[in-house]
């Protein structure tokens, strides 16, 4: 199973994300934002957290126009899996791969702490290792995680069971406590919390490992 991890200028969680995929048994290939194609046989694309292009204009807006994102869009259109975490989630909404937008936290503060999340659906390759309704713990670290979409968009996310994670105690004002959402084909996940920072019990918990193992197993089975 091959995971391609994209690095933009300003990405800072790319190595952690690579480690998390490797720990789960994936072969990791690193991709630079100027690359026009993904490596042959890429099963999953990982868009890491950080501050791509210094958050200029809007978080993720410039990265969404990088050459590699055309290849990522094509990968998603073929039914490939894409995981965007934190700034990666912002890049996915700016790319149009996921609906809505991540706005400045309602409290205006950068929030950096471990939070409790409810797994809202187990029906995806990312979340099938948990039970729907299960509470897990992952770190968040962001200034712009306040998920906003229009009323129709929110109704669609709910009706189609595409809300992946919700906050138990909303840290940023996100609509409907949304922490992560899935694409209509359930193969693109964007989430603000950092599962790649929770893959070792010695370092504050290993709940994040479940996501990477589930994803690797799903890709191997497919």
């Amino acid at each position, binding site marked *: 199973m091959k995971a391609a991890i994209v690095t933009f200028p300003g990405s800072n969680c790319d190595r952690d994300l690579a480690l998390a995929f490797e720990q789960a048994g994936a072969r990791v290939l690193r991709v630079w934002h100027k690359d026009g194609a993904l490596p042959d046989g890429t099963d999953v694309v990982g868009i890491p957290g950080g501050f791509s292009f210094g958050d200029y204009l809007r978080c993720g807006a410039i990265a969404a126009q990088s050459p590699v994102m055309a290849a990522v869009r094509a990968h998603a259109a073929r039914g490939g899996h894409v995981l965007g975490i934190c700034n990666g989630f912002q890049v996915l909404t700016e790319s149009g791969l996921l609906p809505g*937008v991540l706005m400045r936290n309602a*409290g205006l503060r950068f929030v950096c702490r471990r939070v409790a999340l409810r797994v809202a659906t187990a029906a995806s390759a990312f979340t099938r290792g948990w039970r729907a309704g299960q509470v897990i713990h992952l770190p968040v670290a962001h200034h712009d995680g306040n998920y906003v979409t229009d009323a129709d968009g929110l109704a669609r996310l709910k009706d189609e069971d595409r809300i992946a994670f919700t906050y138990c105690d909303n840290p940023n004002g996100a609509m409907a406590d949304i922490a992560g959402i899935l694409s209509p084909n359930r193969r693109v996940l964007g989430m603000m919390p950092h599962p790649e920072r929770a893959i070792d019990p010695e370092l504050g918990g290993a709940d994040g490992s479940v996501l990477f193992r589930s994803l690797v197993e799903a890709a191997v089975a497919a």
Partner: protein
Amino acid sequence: MKARVYVTLREGVLDPQGEAVRHALGTLGFSGVNAVRQGKLIEIDLAATDRAAAEAEVKAMCEKLLANTVIERYAVEIA
């Protein structure tokens, strides 16, 4: 040709930054500030010489990059 693009939040979209500015103005003694909405002004120097073509091009820039129309609206001035 020069273009000015004003990007502002759509009505109904909460602007926590504008709200913080409003609070700060109150603290400074400026009473009677009912609301503050913060936006962006983007100035573009264009090679184009045709006004209509320049406007169309800048609008395309807004749609593709300069504004996120989910939450923002934009206005273009050509000078």
